[in-house]
């Protein structure tokens, strides 16, 4: 794939975020899609490609009135939308579609049209993990962390700092769910969920959605919105079972997706090359793993880097500037909101705008270190 051949021209979230009792899940997809179309002046008949997760692309195409020549239903958890961006960019370059819509909607809090899924007792997870008492991501995604803490001497206080600093970013964002500042003690004294993880080290559970519209960089010039170019992309998968990760201190999927994207972009994971960074933070340890696995820092150094305020407002590497899944919103598959914040930063319209940001890296996780997708955006024309 060529650098900068494809651009995001439409981007929007649902009109509301948080608790949305008046829309079902597919309605959240549609609300975000209509907002994204309005953002760039398109109508459903102008869209010829659709990708989504949570619902099927067939459901969305019919619901929105789209006749696609290209569909993608990659559904690998919260980073599905990063992977959709990657696949869409390749499809546009290959001529399979001209204008691709990617939608996300999730009634994570109200659970309207979003039934609770049960783990199949015949699946490998159902046979070899569920019988030992995990209950969803808070008790699964967190299991590797003790090994990381012992290996690198990282403390609970340092992990709590991730939550504290992201709340500082959220405080600047009127749309963030939680904006009240918190201290390390607030985090450590919050309700114990799965030791060493307290409530404030875990993401929110909210309702919402988001949508993106991509087209060729050439056509992007004709839109009223500022184009945000796709500079590099990567994707990978490791394991659906957290117990079977190769290395509990690092994600193999991150280590494949990230460098693939940087290589394509022709930049390095450094403060010099990257102005703005999003790392999917379903839990407070994810930015730590992400900073190291993307290559920004040597192994074992990310917790001290964050605690040293390098990713905080005013720091050298602004990270999760919307407040992240820990404070902004988290519907279940958060990746779309990380992408939206990267696009806002590249357009210069973010609530906590990074001055003169030209390159944004957006890194997602799916499942519990199961899959990963990385997108590198630029706002400079090719």
């Amino acid at each position, binding site marked *: 794939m060529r650098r900068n051949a494809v651009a995001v021209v439409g981007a929007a979230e649902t009109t509301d975020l948080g608790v949305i009792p008046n829309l079902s899940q597919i309605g959240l997809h549609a609300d975000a899609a209509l907002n994204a179309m309005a953002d760039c002046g398109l109508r459903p008949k102008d869209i010829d490609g659709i990708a989504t997760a949570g619902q099927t692309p067939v459901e969305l195409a019919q619901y929105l009135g789209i006749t696609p020549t290209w569909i993608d239903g990659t559904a690998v958890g919260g980073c599905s939308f990063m992977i959709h961006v990657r696949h869409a960019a390749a499809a546009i370059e290959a001529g399979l579609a001209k204008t691709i819509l990617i939608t996300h909607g999730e009634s994570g809090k109200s659970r309207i049209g979003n039934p609770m899924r049960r783990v199949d*007792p*015949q699946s*490998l997870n159902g046979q070899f993990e569920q019988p030992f008492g995990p*209950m969803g991501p808070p*008790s699964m995604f967190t299991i590797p962390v003790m090994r990381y803490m*012992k290996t690198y001497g990282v403390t609970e206080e340092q992990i709590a700092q991730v939550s504290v600093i992201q709340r500082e970013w959220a405080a600047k964002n009127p749309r963030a769910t939680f904006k009240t500042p918190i201290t390390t003690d607030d985090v450590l004294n919050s309700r114990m969920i799965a*030791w060493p993880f307290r409530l404030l080290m875990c993401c929110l559970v909210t309702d919402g959605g988001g949508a993106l519209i991509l087209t060729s960089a050439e056509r992007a010039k004709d839109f009223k919105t500022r184009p945000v170019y796709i500079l590099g992309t990567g994707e990978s998968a490791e394991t659906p079972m957290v117990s079977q990760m190769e290395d509990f201190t690092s994600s193999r999927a991150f280590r494949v997706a990230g460098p693939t994207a940087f290589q394509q972009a022709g930049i390095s994971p450094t403060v010099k090359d990257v102005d703005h960074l999003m790392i999917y933070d379903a839990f407070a340890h994810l930015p730590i793993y992400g900073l190291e696995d993307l290559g920004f820092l040597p192994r074992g150094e990310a917790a001290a880097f964050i605690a040293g305020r390098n990713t905080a407002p005013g720091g050298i590497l602004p990270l999760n500037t919307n407040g992240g899944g820990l404070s902004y919103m988290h519907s279940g598959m958060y990746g779309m909101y990380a992408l939206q914040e990267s696009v806002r930063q590249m357009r210069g319209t973010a609530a906590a705008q990074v001055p003169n940001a030209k390159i944004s890296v957006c890194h997602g996780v799916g499942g519990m270190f199961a899959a990963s997708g990385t997108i590198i955006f630029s706002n400079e024309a090719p």
Partner: protein
Amino acid sequence: MAEPGRALPVPTPETKHFWEGTAAGELRLQRCDSCGKNYFPPKPFCATCGSRKVSVFKASGKAVLWSYVIHHRPVPGFKPPYAIAVVQLAEGPRMMSNIVECEQTPEALQLDMDLEVVFEKQNDTITLPVFRPAKG
């Protein structure tokens, strides 16, 4: 911890030998006859080299505590707080399990502590492998 309500596995043709093993008091792993790799969870081929020539063998039951959380929320069949652990088996593979005959506290649960398998019968077909501190 074998209270009613715990999620129980339903064996498949590829995993039947494992669950027959635990019911018979054995922890059964698999080994690739082509490349020698020991592996878990069960499947009829080796994901390291792709060979279908694999054997089932009885593991030692020795392990160390690799990582864990202490869960504080209610789950059917469990009394919080309880540890959800991953153990590293002496033969190489890791598996999720519970730690029994041990306080469920950070002080008692030290990473790399020696463990040994014990078997908890759930019903006529399912026996779960759990681990306790090694008795030497």
